[in-house]
């Protein structure tokens, strides 16, 4: 089993606030791991550190053995890491299809001269980009809404679109930040199926932040729990469910 992502003693402070403290974790290729913890535990900060939205204060982040501390966000993404957001960040004025094409085009780049003249590889690549995007939309059940403005989609479908868009980057590591937020139990069930399907079909390694415990316990064989910026527990769902530190974090002390 190869280690895809490793955090070694990563810390992040904002002025006086210690958002992440000495965080270490290892993600093996192909794993579907859950990252849980109360609000403010530092989970999204970990995502932001991995994707270089924030700089690491201390420690190292290694992806496929390479230290990625100093890379810029777009460079990290082009290495094969994609993410979704706690608060949806779709291109709301663009259509559903355009949102996905914006990501799909990263794999089919042509030059500015070809763009301004519509010559060379423009036609072939545009077709590829559109075909791949439509395929992905069919996969997640959004193909019939391809030309609808993204902002007009119902909330659950917007979340789906964001996942589809992240997948069309053809990542190896997918970071999902509370994809089930605001969903009812039926929508969560459908999301479970979608996540497990893309995990299998696209050979993804997934790190999933979620508050819906039933979802995490059901689909993640490996769970990490954080509180106050540090890791407090790690293990299988059964182990986590009965772990005293986890219970204390969520339910408080006796």
């Amino acid at each position, binding site marked *: 089993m190869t280690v895809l992502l490793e955090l070694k003693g990563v810390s992040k402070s904002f002025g006086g606030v210690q958002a992440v403290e000495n965080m270490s974790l290892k993600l093996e290729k192909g794993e579907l791991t859950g990252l849980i913890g109360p609000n403010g535990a530092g989970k999204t900060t970990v995502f932001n550190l991995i994707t270089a939205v924030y700089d690491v204060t201390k420690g190292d982040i290694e992806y496929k053995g390479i230290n990625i501390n100093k890379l810029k966000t777009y460079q990290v993404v082009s290495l094969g890491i*994609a993410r979704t*957001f706690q608060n949806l960040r779709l291109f*709301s*004025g663009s259509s559903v299809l355009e949102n996905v094409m914006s*990501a799909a085009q990263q794999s089919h780049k042509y030059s500015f001269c070809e763009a301004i003249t519509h010559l060379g590889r423009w036609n072939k690549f*545009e077709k590829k980009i559109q075909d791949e995007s439509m395929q992905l939309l069919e996969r997640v059940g959004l193909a019939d809404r391809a030309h609808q403005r993204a902002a007009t989609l119902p909330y659950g479908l917007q979340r789906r679109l964001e996942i589809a868009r992240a997948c069309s980057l053809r990542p190896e590591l997918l970071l999902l930040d509370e994809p089930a937020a605001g969903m009812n139990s039926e929508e969560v069930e459908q999301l479970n199926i979608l996540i497990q399907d893309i995990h299998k079909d696209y050979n993804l390694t997934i790190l999933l932040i979620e508050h819906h415990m039933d979802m995490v316990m059901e689909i993640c064989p490996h769970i990490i729990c954080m509180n106050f910026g540090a890791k407090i527990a790690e293990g299988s769902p059964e182990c986590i469910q009965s772990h005293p530190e986890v219970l204390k974090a969520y339910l408080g002390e006796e």
Partner: protein
Amino acid sequence: MQGYVAGIITLLAINCIAALGVSLFTGFTGIFTLGHAGYMAIGAYTAAILTFKYSVHFIPAIICGGLLAMIVAYLIGIPTLKLVGDYYTIASLGLGEAIRLIIENWESVTRGARGFPGIAPYTSLPVALVFLIIMAVAMFFIVNSSYGRAFKACRDDYVAASLLGFNTAHYRVLSLAVSGFYCGVSGALLAGFMSFVQPVMFDMAKSTELVSVVVFGGLGSISGSLIGATILTLVTELFRPISQYRMLIYGLVLVFVMVFRPEGIMGTNELTLNYIKNIFSAKKKASEFDRRTTDDCAS
């Protein structure tokens, strides 16, 4: 009369080219600028000096004007496009004014504030129209490509854009450079139309005009910018006899548009056959609906 109409259409074409450039930067890439008149000035003076002093043919002179404006825009863009929001806007204002001041003070080359007369009137109607058509088609192609999507991504959400692998800094600078080229060509054509250029022609009022045209037409719409440029050029020409009131009316138009229809004439839509069809079918649907409901009530 014919000469007058030809003149207006030529001026229109010149304004449209500049509007296309600003549309790319402000409308599609979402960066509000108040300094693009500076790039017009660079294009205008470059073409003026090349044709007048060095007897260069006007076509390469115009293209050089565009290229020099593009290079300056690129060099300026690299350090300044790190700024966000109003900071960039005011910096762009400062830069536009700085360009004008440099031109004004570099008298040995530009003849200073008095202006540069005697430029050959090379911008005939056909010349202007050919440049407009080629550049409009090119802009349409840019927007309907990966680069168009990249610019729009930077506009809509630059954080999400960078997390989709876009080097947002690079695309912003590219957008500025291309818009600089367009404004440079427009300025070069203007020099050949007026046969005279003066730094005060490219002041903050001109920059404001450029951006107002794009907002009026609709941010994020090529046809909108062209329509906006056309309407505002015609309106200012029509009101030339009462030029005192011209600017007042211009300001009032701006205020009324922003208060009552801030998305501009076209919003983010393009004037395609579909769009025109939709407008008419929406009207038809409304009248059909009325007819049907009265029928239902009758039965």
